[in-house]
């Protein structure tokens, strides 16, 4: 395949991209193959150098590395460090990579319990789940469980065009209101929408299920006011905790509680 394409008469380099998955469900990588109608255009922007899930060709000369999943084994740490060395832009791709994701729920249990329960008697290696930025420097975060393909497309286009990559700074409520959904708090539930970064188009709340905060905290959230809200409405603090802990995205705010 030819390497340079032209746009507006100006040659541009396709992004030499690689995608790697670690401890995760691979749902985020799967999104890369979604939005089928624009998929050919999208792939036209990329020079896929390494993407095991869809291609047998593997090269190590990528510039951009998408890292999906969290880290929970020593061999993963080493793989990640190696990727960091090569990648000019390392992207934490998806909630698992950005925050640890649901996998982090495992950290609440001692390792022995985990192994005894699932692999009794087997020598299984496992480390507490860590997010990517705990181990290496991350250049770009694309949160979401799974990531929103339209957002990924927008970000890739920005990278190609050299424009600024941004995520919404405001919370999910903005998008929720634009869909005319009924606020989950009005339905008597705790929703993390008011403290979670928008960009998912309020997909959960518009399906009438509470936001669990997969995209992590919005900018400068008012956690104290949010806790006051939950208490004031007489909602269950256990429920709140389960939600805040679900994706591990609100870890820095959890001790706020006391």
């Amino acid at each position, binding site marked *: 395949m030819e390497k340079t394409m032209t746009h507006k008469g100006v040659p541009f380099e396709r992004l030499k991209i690689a995608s790697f998955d670690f401890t995760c469900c691979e749902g985020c990588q799967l999104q890369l193959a979604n939005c089928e109608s624009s998929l050919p255009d999208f792939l036209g922007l990329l020079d896929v150098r390494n993407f095991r899930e869809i291609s*047998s060709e593997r090269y190590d000369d990528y510039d951009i590395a998408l890292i999906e999943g969290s880290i929970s084994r020593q061999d993963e740490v080493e793989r990640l460090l190696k990727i960091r060395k090569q990648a000019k832009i390392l992207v934490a791709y998806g909630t698992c990579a950005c925050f640890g994701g649901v996998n982090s729920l495992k950290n609440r249990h001692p390792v022995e319990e985990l192994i005894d329960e699932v692999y009794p008697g087997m020598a299984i290696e496992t480390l507490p789940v860590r997010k990517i930025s705990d181990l290496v420097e991350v250049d770009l975060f694309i949160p979401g469980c799974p990531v929103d393909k339209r957002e990924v497309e927008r970000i890739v286009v920005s990278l190609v065009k050299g424009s600024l990559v941004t995520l919404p700074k405001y919370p999910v409520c903005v998008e929720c209101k634009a869909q005319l959904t009924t606020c989950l708090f009005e339905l008597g539930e705790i929703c993390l929408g008011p403290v979670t970064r928008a960009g998912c188009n309020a997909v959960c709340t518009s399906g009438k299920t509470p936001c669990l905060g997969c995209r992590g905290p919005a900018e400068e959230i008012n956690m104290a006011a949010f806790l006051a809200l939950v208490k004031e409405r007489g909602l269950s603090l256990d429920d709140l905790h389960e939600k805040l802990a679900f994706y591990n995205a609100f870890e820095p705010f959890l001790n706020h509680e006391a």
Partner: protein
Amino acid sequence: MKRDYAIAIRHLSRVEGHADIHITVKDGELVEARWAVVETPRFFEVMLKGISAERVPFLTSRICGICSISHALASIRALERAMEITPPLAAEQTRLLAMQGETLQSHALHLFFLMAPDFIGTSSVIPLMQSHPDLVRAGLQIKELGNEISSVSAGRCTHPVTLVIGGLSKAPDKQRLLQLRTMIQERKPALESACSFFSSLVMPDFSRETEFISLCNGSSYPSIGGRLISTDGVNRDENDYLLMTNEYTREFSTSKFTRLSRDSSVAGALARFNNNHALLHPKARETAEQLGLRPICHNPFMNTIAQLVECVHILEEAENLINSLLDMDLQEIKTPYAPKAGAATGAVEAPRGILYHSMETDAAGHVVKADCVIPTTQNNGNIHSDLRALARQALEEEKDDRETEKLCEMMVRSYDPCISCSVH
């Protein structure tokens, strides 16, 4: 011809998850043929402990990004049975529709993105966009349709949002159902053209007799719940899943193994076909005939064809489900429930085969014990045995290591293994 070779594939490509293939031949003798799953375990069964029932489907769906709907629905079914909740009919129909969408999407991904490059001889689908644009376009259209069916019925295609304990949190929008029906009709030709492409292919000639396990409800092609049956004549209740699986571990694999009447058994499209062929839509049966697929088929490569046949069935089935949903008043979509203690199993036919979730709850509706048995786990043993048989057959046919490697990769891919799912 080389009589000594070692094939070592680290992290097999174009499959979901991480696994290696090792084949060693010494002096023309097969020494080793191993399929080793090296995926990192996530310990979902332990994570689930203490989680409230309400949240469980959101957690279990994260076991797998490709068949998240199946996982959500398996745990929902287990919990609803454990807590004795009967969801309204509209919700059941919508769930069935969501399953059709997911299977269609997953099959399309496998057929066009993962398998087609093998048949055409490329390393990925990307060069096919230039060389076989019509095929890729058809694949994208079918995949998009699958995603759209899931989105309309479950709120999102990967990691559903509206599938909840008791029914649905939100009914599908009738306007969108109508559009969806039109979309299905419009995309049938794409599937037909894909069928004619696949009918032109010659499947590798390989067969090894084994046992096929699937759900069966006697009245329709299986999807959610039913009895557990096998081609060896086993027929059990859903809750008796442990007797079907007999899980065991092997030290080289983080994915477990199962067995039933023989050393190994198979779940998946081919198993469903072999067990429930008569319940397929006539059109799908016709397609099977054209593609040379007849029950009971023991060629693992034909799993791909069984998937294609199922796609034909799904398009018809989805249309029927949409029609029945359009006739319903979608007001009653969720049965209110009070949490209670109980235990039960939920089995569904995920795209890659029968998926069991078994859940035990306490009086407050929190999970106290969970167990999930994944289709790929059930196929592990069979992949293993097939790999050995295939490697031996290749030796007899005097194939060289390159050819053998390609053939083995392709055989494993035919199972459409979903490894991160199997190591959960």
